[in-house]
């Protein structure tokens, strides 16, 4: 088992090096990526500044928390990018591209993730996010307790893993359905809620975005913990338990879907 894990860790590092090598081949891609992140970050901040030009707060959310929310969202998305292979999995299933992974001595799920890794984009997103969080804390003088920051980021990681496994399960439906664009499109529509404070929404929608499609767990709640709005240990524990339960649920769902799907895999296209 240790040999297996060590091998896959080495492979992960090898794939990261390959990703850097691709940027060496296409240096303009690196520059345009950087411009994209800077532009997107500036637009997010300007958007909230514009929203709060005439108002000081919406509900419990003032501009400082919303900028912080933007930063947390970037961190979460940077982590999510590591698993982009799941997003592109339906195409691989449909075109028979899993053949390559199934006939080599490597874990096919790990290979799917590693082969689509875009570490430059992931690091850029996470660095941008942490920079926005730090800048907001300094500019708006938000006292940040390190323990809160650690707990908030920890819950964000858990929440992201829930979404990753959910994506994996959705993508596995391609073993049966072939094309999954419509289901994926419906899931993608909810991504926008990552950047808005979900505690402001009506209770039904809030419940849906916390317990069913847990967008609230990857930005809103971690942000509230980092800024110190959720201090009670009981509530923090409650969020952690929800996340762990969802993680377990989606891990089982993904595992079952993958095992059944791979038995059904048709390896079409040659």
């Amino acid at each position, binding site marked *: 088992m240790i040999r297996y894990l060590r*091998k896959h860790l080495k492979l992960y590092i090898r794939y990261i090096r390959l990703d850097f090598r691709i940027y060496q081949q296409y240096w303009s891609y690196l520059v345009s990526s950087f411009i994209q992140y800077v532009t997107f970050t500036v637009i997010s901040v300007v958007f909230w500044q514009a929203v709060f030009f005439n108002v000081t707060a919406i509900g419990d959310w003032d501009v400082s928390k919303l900028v912080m929310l933007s930063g947390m969202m970037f961190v979460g998305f940077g982590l999510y990018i590591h698993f982009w292979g799941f997003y592109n999995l339906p195409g691989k299933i449909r075109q028979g591209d899993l053949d390559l992974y199934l006939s080599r001595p490597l874990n096919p799920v790990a290979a799917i993730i590693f082969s689509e890794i875009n570490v430059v984009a992931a690091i850029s997103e996470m660095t941008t996010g942490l920079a926005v969080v730090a800048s907001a804390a300094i500019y708006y003088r938000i006292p940040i307790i390190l323990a809160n920051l650690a707990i908030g980021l920890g819950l964000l990681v858990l929440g992201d893993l829930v979404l990753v496994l959910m994506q994996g399960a959705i993508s596995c439906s391609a073993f049966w359905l072939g094309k999954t664009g419509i289901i994926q499109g419906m899931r993608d529509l909810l991504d926008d809620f990552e950047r808005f404070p979900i505690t402001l929404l009506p209770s039904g929608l809030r419940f849906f975005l916390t317990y069913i499609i847990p967008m609230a767990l990857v930005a809103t709640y971690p942000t509230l913990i980092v800024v110190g709005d959720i201090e009670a240990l009981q509530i923090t524990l409650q969020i952690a338990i929800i996340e762990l339960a969802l993680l377990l649920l989606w891990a089982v769902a993904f595992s079952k879907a993958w095992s059944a799907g791979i038995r059904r895999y048709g390896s079409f296209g040659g």
Partner: protein
Amino acid sequence: MCIMKAIAVKELVKAYRRPKPKRHWYKWGQYEPFRAIDGISFDIERGEMVGYLGPNGAGKSTTIKLLTGILTPTSGQVEVLGYVPYQQRYEYAYHIGVILGQRELLWWDLPVLDSLRLYAEIYELTMEEFENRLELLSEVLGLEDLLYIPVRQLSLGQKKRCEFAASLMHKPDIIFMDEPMIALDVLVKERIRKLIRDVNKLLGTTVFLTTHDMGDVEELCDRVIILNEGKVVYDGSLPRLKSKYARWKTIEFEVSAIRDRSMLDRALASCEIVRAGGANWEARVPSDAGPIPQIVEGILNSCAVVDLSVHTSKLELIIADIFRSGAP
């Protein structure tokens, strides 16, 4: 099943469902069962080189995918080197080399060497093993000038050579090749055939090859298995196939002048003329049609012959006959 065998297949079935032909545009979503592989059985000993032949859609690639663990069989048994491929994929994959003609093995955007290093890591080769094998394969396949070029800039044939290196680097016990020689020129084909013969002879590697190029079969394979519509229709040695199923002999001759046309026509009366007129002639004689020497004598007496050869049917023709008839 016996562990000493390289491959043991028994009553193997792979079934899919496929759309029924539609007569009306509104009738859709109707499927019918279809057996791509229909109860095949065969054993292959270690060190054998086997050609697996069949027309398009016969189930050759499906068989290779079942043998390599890519596909899960619908029913039946398959065991390779003592492993059940679809159940023990990870351990099993260390022992096999797979070349699938339609699948890209190399990283499109990167120099070839980067992909080969990745494969070395996947197969857990030490740096020394990697360098030794790379040197050997580079020499045999002529890769020295290709290693530092991004894959996207290589020709199809150059890419194939690099893919061979990626698949053979870990010294597999069995090589599965599905149409490996597509798009290769004659010289590269010859190099690769020699490489395959050498690894078979020196390392005892078992070779399982699908191809439409009968040159590959004649040069590499001791045994052929012919598949048609998912069923094995022939399994035996290549010489036996030729002697048993060669229904024709071919007489090819080149003439500078025809001295007596009516004599020539009489000589060729029992033959089917494939090519006639001009300098080059080709005639097919049913194997049971009578003595060839009399026909040859008639040709020699009626024409000024520059060159003449008699040979049994080409392998392509024998195989095509078997494909057409469904069974030999």
